[in-house]
């Protein structure tokens, strides 16, 4: 597998695109490109960007999403655009997109995406799927359930919800020459590739155990028979207007954690809005009767989770096969909440990933000359499989997590 990554911070969209493309193509050194990933800050997201790129790469399937900053190796590039080109003789990909999710049922949109992805995969081996979706979508869990309905419940799936520059106004998705806002883009990987996934967040439970006594999809109505918002009112001694004002901040640092039997970590849920009746609108599903806790995250716990996630990822590496055949690239889907929490230490997290990956390569001689390329984006929500056997690798919607994916052939 050959990888070419280009990145540019030029202000002019066309110049930035040309610079990134030139770098990526030069690095790839191959004419044939199986798939192109485009990650860019929201100011680059324009129809002309994709039309221009399509002129340069007319036959290459392209997917991508907007991000508050591009992650490249161990650095964060704000106001940038990155293009990642992949070539492999063993890789088969299928890409598809769905639009206007909020206007219809998110579950059905997920099903449609799954159906489209499978169209090109009649007989080949399917390995795993990656999905980029609208970062402001409330029903992300439904979308994923719809997709799983077609791909298979336990089919390995990772995903990232696009982000903007923390203004939560509009996020963008890139699909071939189209710019989507309220949509989702999927990639189905198959052929003979090797992949590894892992995810963690590092938030810890605090205070009493509580129970969801009433909920519907992603709407958390009652906790211990009281309006759900009372959880935050009690803990932070704030009234409703004050909570509403500080919600983004509070929910980023102190989300709700759903206890999952057998899982090491709680499943986190950010609060998007508070209804006047005290219901909390969450970003993912909040099943009724779940045991929940209020969660707290610190820089240390966050970084330690990143370390654990990377170590876990590298435990999947076989010692009998050359590392060059197992990891050609690492994708990072990193929650924007982590960026907010870590702030000045945000690059530390990426260095930690890079160092841990390098340190855990079984044969130290390999890759000693150059690092494995790492590319990624900041997300408003992540999809990743649960680890406990009981869940049979089923992917769930997460918040505050770092999701790592390695691909090789």
């Amino acid at each position, binding site marked *: 597998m050959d990888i070419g990554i280009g990145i540019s911070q030029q202000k002019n969209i066309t110049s930035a695109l040309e610079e990134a493309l030139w770098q990526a193509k030069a690095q790839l050194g191959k004419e044939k490109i199986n798939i192109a990933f485009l990650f860019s800050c929201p100011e680059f997201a324009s129809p002309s960007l994709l039309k221009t790129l399509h002129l340069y790469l007319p036959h290459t399937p392209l997917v991508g999403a907007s991000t508050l900053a591009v992650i490249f190796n161990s650095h964060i590039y704000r106001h940038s655009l990155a293009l990642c080109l992949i070539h492999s003789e063993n890789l088969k990909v299928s890409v598809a997109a769905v639009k206007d999710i909020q206007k219809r049922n998110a579950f059905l949109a997920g099903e449609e995406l799954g159906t489209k992805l499978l169209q090109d995969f009649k007989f080949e081996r399917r390995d795993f799927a990656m999905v980029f979706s609208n970062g402001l979508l409330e029903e992300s869990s439904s979308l994923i359930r719809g997709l799983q309905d077609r791909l298979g419940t336990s089919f390995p799936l990772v995903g990232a919800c696009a982000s903007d*520059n923390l203004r939560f106004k509009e996020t963008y998705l890139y699909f071939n020459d189209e710019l989507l806002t309220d949509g989702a883009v999927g990639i189905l990987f198959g052929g003979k590739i090797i992949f590894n996934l892992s995810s963690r967040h590092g938030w810890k439970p*605090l*205070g*009493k155990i509580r129970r969801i006594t009433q909920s519907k999809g992603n709407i958390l109505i009652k906790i211990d028979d009281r309006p759900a918002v009372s959880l935050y009112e009690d803990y932070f001694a704030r009234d409703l207007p004050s909570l509403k004002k500080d919600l983004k901040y509070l929910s980023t640092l102190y989300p709700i954690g759903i206890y999952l039997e057998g899982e090491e970590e709680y499943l986190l849920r950010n609060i998007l809005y508070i209804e006047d009746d005290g219901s909390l609108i969450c970003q993912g599903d909040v099943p009724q009767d779940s045991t929940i806790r209020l969660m707290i995250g610190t820089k240390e716990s966050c970084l330690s989770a990143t370390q654990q996630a990377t170590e876990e990822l590298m435990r999947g590496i076989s010692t009998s096969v050359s590392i060059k055949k197992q990891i050609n690239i690492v994708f990072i889907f990193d929650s924007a909440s982590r960026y907010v929490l870590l*702030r000045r230490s945000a690059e530390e997290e990426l260095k930690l990933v890079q160092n841990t990956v390098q340190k855990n390569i079984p044969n130290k001689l390999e890759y000693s000359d150059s690092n494995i390329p790492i590319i990624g984006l900041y997300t408003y929500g992540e999809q990743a499989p649960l680890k406990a056997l009981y869940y049979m690798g089923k992917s769930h919607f997460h918040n505050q997590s770092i999701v790592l994916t390695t691909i090789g052939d």
Partner: protein
Amino acid sequence: MQNLLNLYQLSPFLLILTVIGLTVMLIFKMKKIEELNSYVAHLKRSLDEIDEQAKLILRTDIELNKIQEELDRKIIALYALQRISREISTTIDESEIFAHIKDSHIEDMGFEKALIFLWNEKKKKFTEVFNLGYNPQELESIIEDLDNDFYLKIMETNQTISSFSCSDEQLKEKIKNLFKVNSFVITPLLPKEGNRGFVFVGREAMDTMLTAGNEELIIIFANQLSQTLDNARLFEKTWQAQQELERKVEERTLQLSRALEEIKMISKRKSDFVSAVSHELRTPLTSIKGYASILLSEKLGQLPPAVKERLDKINRHSDELAQLVNNLLDISRIESGKISMKLEPLNLKEIIEEVVDLMNVQLKEKEIEFKFELSADVEYVLADRQQLERVFINLLGNAIKFTPAKGKISIRASSLDNLCQIDITDTGIGIPQESLGAIFDEFYRVDNPINQKVKGTGLGLSLVKRIVEAHGGSIWVRSKLNEGSTFSFTIPKPK
């Protein structure tokens, strides 16, 4: 059961015992339940207490986080300011200064929108030189609605206005609406020279409050910018002046080199002319001298004394004229490089002694005391024998000519690196200060009683100078009127 009843009927005592036992057990259980209840209550209380502690932890944590965040923001902002300062302070091109301010710098200082305007006095409007966060249409509408007088007044009074410190609610709202922000800082840009302007930075977000720190940071930023503008403008001015100076120097150099070319051409024409004329003069002069000699030999008949006397004069003057023509020819030959010096190692002592021998009669006639000093490290010089002799004959001849009877003349030769310096000193009448600069010029003769009496070509020293220079040496003179002169020249030594 029936059996048990029968048993109790048989032994009422046993019944009593059972009742007592059961009662004791009941009491015991009751006690246990009570204990458990109290334990549960205790646990519940503990949990509640832990939960209360959790609340405390959370509230403290959120405060800590906010402080930490504020601190982080400030550190990031200061770093950004430092980065901007570093990047713009080395910029000397005014148009480049604003291009060096990156969007991320402004964002790191805590603002997502920024505009920098400079006042264009000619057009009577503000021109935008930096823009972050506005598309062309938005920018156009801002410039259109900009209250020029208000911003000019801010610049005039060096006043900073921000949503944090401004108490005029109406004004605040007006600015917020114009720039479509919820908090802002506006501060003037006041370089000492040239266009002035103002910096605007703003935030859209409602949830972050502006602080005095933000305001101060932007004032520092604007000051830094003003200073950089000043530097750039000063540099531009200096550069322009230097360019002008360079242009003038170039112009003058061109004029001078043209003049020099002209002089060279004239000088060449003069040399050519002198050379041609001298050649043409030499042939008739030879004839004149030849005929005069024939007549004087009286082979053609006896000559009356008066005729003989006149013919003598003709002969002598012809000799002088021939000398003059020869000198002139030599000068022009040396000048045009037609004479090449036949350099060879020469024993300086021998040369000088030969010349002194030649001049001995005159020295004796005037009873001049002659002294010759040769330092030990000068033995040989590298020169053309004939030409070097001419130099000595000329200089020594001049010294004898201008030294009164019983005067002194000395020749001193010393070593000077790879050169030999020869000084010929006399106690003659000396050369007036004003003539010192011209005595090596052709046909220049110092105005003194001796020169008025004794004839000369005015070419001797000129020829000497050319010979010395053709050897790669130089010649100069020191003299004091009525005290004497020292002519010094250098000539190379053999390697």
